[in-house]
């Protein structure tokens, strides 16, 4: 008995002799981040990214609308140029908001809004053909443009830019009126998004789940960036294997596809830098988050290095490099999920 007591005494001293013993190696991944700091970082993402970018989107939509109203009054080259310039800003701002559109995970009423605004790769409607038919007709536009697709960003792009060359745009009164119907539709929806984010803290209140929803959304936007926006036009995907076609690019008509890709990546970078990287650091996942930020920056740099629009050559070596980097970003998001502490990593090594 004495021997055992001595053993126990030694054991207690050993256990109490240093911080190293507090960690037995079995439960090393239990969250080290306080929920308070997570809330602060979520609030920062909400304020600096969600609210700021959606408000900017709503303001840009209003400005674009004003320019289109002016275009309705006078279909001059100046007014058209002004509307086109604002519209491209609108497209890019929207891509950013879409990239981190967590509203659909927070409120069921917000699920369908993106599909009302943007139908890229959704549905089978050939928007240019359909719009050309409508512009050539004389039926009331409101009835003709009843489908969301014909009021979407893609529809507005085609209406304002025509088939890539400005000279191709025969900006008639009817075309300008159609653009007004489209921007009204878009403005209504982006205003709803801006109001949703600015009115409450559903995102912050969701806590840990908000992080999950955000990462899922960013993975989704990364996948679509890789497959839909780069892979399909470049002929890297199964769907269009070895059949590159610039017309599959998202903003082919306005030659703004690279800028749209950049906006998506910039939005992801903002989310990371404004809070997600900090949340990851608080939960033993800083190396995964840091690697992700480096990759996103690298992808943005690759986009900036394109000397000619991707519309001119959708399957260049630069495109392939970008595609591969985005693929690695997608994998890195999965690694980030795995590294975050929202799942247990106990090591259970005892029998029974």
């Amino acid at each position, binding site marked *: 008995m004495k021997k055992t007591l001595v053993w126990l005494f030694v*054991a207690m001293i050993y*256990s109490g002799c240093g911080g190293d*013993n507090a960690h037995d190696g079995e439960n090393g991944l239990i969250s080290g981040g306080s929920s308070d700091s997570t809330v602060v970082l979520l609030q920062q993402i909400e304020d600096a990214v969600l609210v700021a970018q959606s408000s900017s989107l709503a303001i840009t939509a209003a400005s674009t609308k004003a320019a289109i109203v002016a275009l309705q009054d006078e279909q001059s080259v100046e007014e058209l140029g002004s509307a086109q310039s604002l519209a491209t800003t609108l497209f890019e701002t929207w891509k950013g908001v879409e990239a981190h559109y967590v509203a659909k995970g927070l409120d069921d009423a917000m699920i369908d809004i993106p599909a009302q605004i943007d139908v890229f790769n959704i549905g089978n409607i050939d928007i240019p053909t359909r719009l050309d038919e409508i512009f050539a007709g004389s039926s009331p536009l409101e009835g003709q443009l009843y489908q969301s697709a014909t009021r979407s960003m893609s529809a507005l792009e085609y209406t304002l830019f025509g088939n890539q060359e400005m000279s191709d745009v025969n900006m008639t009164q009817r075309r300008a009126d159609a653009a007004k119907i489209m921007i009204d539709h878009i403005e209504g929806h982006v205003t709803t998004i801006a109001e949703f984010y600015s009115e409450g803290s559903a995102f912050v209140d969701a806590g840990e*789940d908000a992080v999950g929803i955000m990462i899922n959304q960013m993975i989704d936007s990364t996948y679509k960036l890789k497959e839909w926006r780069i892979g399909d036009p470049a002929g890297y995907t199964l769907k269009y294997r070895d059949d590159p076609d610039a017309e599959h690019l998202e903003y082919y008509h306005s030659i703004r596809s690279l800028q749209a890709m950049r906006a998506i990546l910039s939005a992801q970078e903002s989310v990371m830098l404004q809070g997600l990287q900090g949340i990851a650091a608080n939960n033993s996942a800083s190396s995964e988050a840091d690697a992700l930020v480096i990759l996103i920056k690298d992808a943005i740099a690759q986009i900036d290095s394109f000397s000619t629009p991707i519309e001119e050559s959708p399957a260049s070596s630069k495109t392939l490099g970008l595609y591969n980097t985005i693929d690695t970003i997608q994998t890195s998001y999965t690694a980030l999920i795995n590294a975050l502490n929202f799942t247990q990593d106990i090591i259970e090594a005892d029998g029974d």
Partner: protein
Amino acid sequence: MGSLGIEYFFDTHQRIFWLYLLVSSMIAAVYILYHREKFKTYLDPKIWWHRSARLDYGYFIVVSLIKSTFIIPLLLSSKEVALLTALTLQELLGYMPAMGWSREAIMLLFSATLFIVSDFTRYWLHRLMHALPFLWRFHRVHHSAEVLNPLTFYRVHPVENVLFGIRYALSAGLVTGLFIYLFGARISLIEVIGVNLFVFAFAMLGSNLRHSHVPLRYGNTIERWVISPFMHQLHHTRMGAEHNYGGALAVWDRLFGTLYITEVSVLQFGLGKGTGHDSILDLLTRPLKLKKEISYEKDRLIT
């Protein structure tokens, strides 16, 4: 520096976390109230200070040190398996948008799946430890205990620790990887004091009494689904050691024909005369020294 196991009493993931011990003690106290004739038996120093029990206490400290120093730092992590699983599923099946289930539903399904799959793999590894002579030589260390107490749970040879560690990493990793593939970053466990709800519930059902002399039963109906302390005690007898391999659920024993429930008032634990161990060193080294494979059947014949 390694661990000597003292912190296990304060770690909610450990079987001997103080709350689980307390609850088991309270359950035992209630049981004793209804079986007062056995009162002296349960508190008899012949059990708690038996040679085998003392060996358990010392072995617990030594094996904790071995585990924390040599085994756990080198063991495969379930997170590594999870990442590999998620990426492999993406590669094979393609990207799938995260399913939009409610967070509560995801948490419940993930917690239950993790618990069930882990219990299933525990059943099979435990059964293999008995069926394969090469493994039995290590598992017999656990079955050599002649009396049972909560620390007998840790009377496991380090080789068995490694096998159970790999088992957990694989089963938890595969489940987690699958759930990451299906639900992305929204997976989470329903936890009580930092432990999977189902694991916690099992612990609160008196899991520490499995290695004790309190023959607590849950009743025939429940015992078709959950392994009671008495059922595990039967497993520690020579007549019942080929049965009741289950960790928490009795379903596996029922499905694979190893469920065993009988009415016995006196249980004789251990492997029989001459098969016990004399020292901690003997517990650790004898399985490695055996020149011939020793099967469970051979152990049974020793009287």
